[in-house]
């Protein structure tokens, strides 16, 4: 299970420590707006092949739209 992060301060701290931001929303929504520096892999396309874009040696911080 991933660790849960709730505050923007924790997000910033993790990014400063080298974490990668992963946006799992659709491509159109990503094109419209996303967090700075995020990589987009829509949830439906997330598999071993697409995840190869991520650096295995750095933490991954994943987000979607909101709590829902």
């Amino acid at each position, binding site marked *: 299970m991933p660790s849960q992060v*709730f505050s923007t301060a924790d997000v910033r701290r993790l990014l400063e420590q080298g974490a990668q931001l992963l946006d799992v929303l659709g491509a159109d929504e990503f094109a419209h707006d996303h967090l700075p520096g995020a990589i987009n892999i829509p949830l439906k396309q997330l598999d071993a092949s697409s995840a190869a874009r991520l650096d295995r040696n750095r*933490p991954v*911080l994943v987000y979607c739209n909101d709590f829902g």
Partner: protein
Amino acid sequence: MFDYVPGKEGWYEDNGPREGQATDEIWIGDVADSTVPTCHLKERVGELRDRVRADGRDTCVAIDPQGIVLGLLRNRALEASPQATAEEVMAPGPKTFRPNVTLQELLKSMRDHDIQTNSLVTAADGRLLGVISRADAEATFAHEGTVEAAP
């Protein structure tokens, strides 16, 4: 692996920056006034009116101790008996907007519903982020439209 639970909405509620096409848009969270006067339910209108008007304002937002919006006191409510409480004269449960609504969308809603005063900007949990007046919304939109149209 970390899960940022509040997601994009939470990020924008805290005024986090964004990338993408939306950087060309004006979001109401970008321009909302976060210094709007606030009050608690049991505050007396007389004291409240003095405080709000000394600040050159005509609106006050009633909030709970966590900053959650409970009601809105506009000019007419502030004219009530000085002994009345904010709770007795406020308009409860005012309509609110998320910070990532565009100024254009807000203005359309204000025009469609003939809202001449302030609209509230809140987080998903109802926490007050700021207000934007119809006049400021119109002026900002007109100004930005002019800037965008300039060569």
